[in-house]
């Protein structure tokens, strides 16, 4: 097991290194100002964000102005959407009446491209964080909601009958039976919506924001700071990777029974 995961890590390092080398080669051969080489981008990123004092964990003032608002919006938006999605989804999944009423609304809602709603959120809230959070919430709630509906609706009938026979109370049935059996699907939805939240964060910051990574990307673009633009892009990619990796760690903790049960089956 340990040997295998070491091998995986090794293979990943090789793939990343090879991709970086290829990127370097192509951009050098092309010699286009719009496509700086990674060897230009990475030092610029270091200079912009990671050359700060030790007391600030090497983060520069620019980084401290840019990262926390973005990450804050992303996490608040994602957590709010997740909670709302899970609660609503479980309710809809277990209630025939609710699903009959709300299915069309859900289909309508998720067909609306969230960026289109940014101006509406502007009008509702004001320029600033509430608008960004509203955009993120609206953009990422759907995978969680739909998966929670599905998970709650497909609880094994025999599990529910067992619960009924042994006289479990309503809260017990929800907490001990429905939530755990819907959990694998909910978690799949959460993971999807987390990566979506990063995208929604950038989109929401591109317009009508005065801080954050998206805003930084926008201003760099407007000032033709091509290397800065690429720096933001790479930063977002790394951030996405880190978010997903941390999510997987948590997932392994709460859903260990599920993956191990499937391996045993």
């Amino acid at each position, binding site marked *: 097991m340990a040997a295998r995961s070491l091998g995986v890590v090794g293979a990943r390092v090789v793939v990343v290194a090879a991709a970086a080398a290829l990127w370097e080669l192509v951009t050098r051969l092309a010699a286009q100002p719009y496509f700086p080489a990674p060897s230009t981008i990475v030092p610029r990123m270091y200079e912009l964000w990671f050359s700060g004092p030790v007391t600030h964990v090497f983060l520069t003032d620019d980084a401290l102005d840019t990262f926390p608002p973005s990450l804050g919006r992303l996490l608040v938006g994602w957590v709010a959407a997740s909670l709302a999605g899970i609660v609503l989804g479980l309710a809809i999944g277990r209630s025939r009446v609710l699903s009959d009423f709300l299915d069309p609304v859900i289909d309508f809602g998720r067909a609306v491209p969230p960026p289109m709603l940014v101006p509406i959120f502007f009008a509702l809230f004001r320029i600033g964080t509430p608008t960004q959070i509203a955009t993120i919430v609206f953009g990422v709630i759907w995978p969680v909601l739909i998966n929670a509906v599905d998970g709650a609706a497909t609880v094994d009938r025999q599990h529910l*009958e*067992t619960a009924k*026979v042994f006289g479990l109370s309503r809260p017990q049935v929800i907490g001990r039976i429905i939530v*755990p059996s819907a959990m694998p699907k909910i978690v799949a939805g959460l993971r999807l919506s987390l990566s979506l939240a990063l995208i929604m964060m950038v989109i929401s910051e591109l317009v009508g924001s005065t801080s954050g990574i998206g805003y930084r990307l926008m201003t760099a673009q407007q000032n033709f700071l091509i290397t800065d633009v690429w720096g933001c892009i790479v930063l977002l990619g790394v951030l996405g990777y880190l978010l997903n990796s941390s999510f997987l760690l948590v997932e392994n903790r709460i859903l260990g029974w599920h993956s*191990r*049960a499937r391996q*045993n*089956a």
Partner: protein
Amino acid sequence: MLEIIDVTHTYGAYQALGGVKLTLAEGELVCVVGPSGCGKSTLLRCVAGLVQPTGGRILLDGVPVSQTPDNLAVVFQDYSRSLFPWMSAAANVALPLRRKGMDRASRRTAAMEALEQVGLAGAAGKYPWEMSGGMQQRVSIARALAYRPSLLLMDEPFGSVDAQTREDLEDLVLRVCAHHGMTIMLVTHDIDESVYLGDRVVVLSRSPGTVAGDLQVSLPSPRDQIATREHETFVRLRAEVGRLIRGNQLSPQET
């Protein structure tokens, strides 16, 4: 203690039960045997309150069954869908005990005791998917035992395990049943099993299910997998039950 009075049940146009009359006395182990599709599982589900019969009445200790009764437990055939895979064996057994107002420590103690009775003292921390089928069904039985129901329903409880395990589990049920003095209604399609286990064997006819025969099993206790099965009463009853079931079989073109 259990009275089933003229119970009928229809699923749409299909009549599963055609007026079943059956009484179980306190402490009795009654096997309900019949060909597949005779409605024996439907009957059990009616008693468990999982299905509302179309007609007739079911009284448990004189009280009509409408919802699932408090003092009743079920062991289902499909243990893998009845045990909760996100809980350890001990947690599965302890879960229903909250209802009895037991605190955490006494729930735990009761669960461990029940697991010990089914020979799984060492497996309390294991998850169902780490266990063999026979072990999982033992956990189901332990869950039912810990619940201390006055009536235990078993729906083809050994239908999904291998022959050797099946015999072990049969003897386990006989042993704990004698120990707790529980009333048990066990549904099976296996004639040998019904005669081996039952104090009484009730034969249901093919659909719509009605009681085709009700036989006292006067075999010596404790029963023994080898000796009991070669006992002349066993052989005679087995043939009799077989005849009752066959006698009610439809001709091939009708099935």
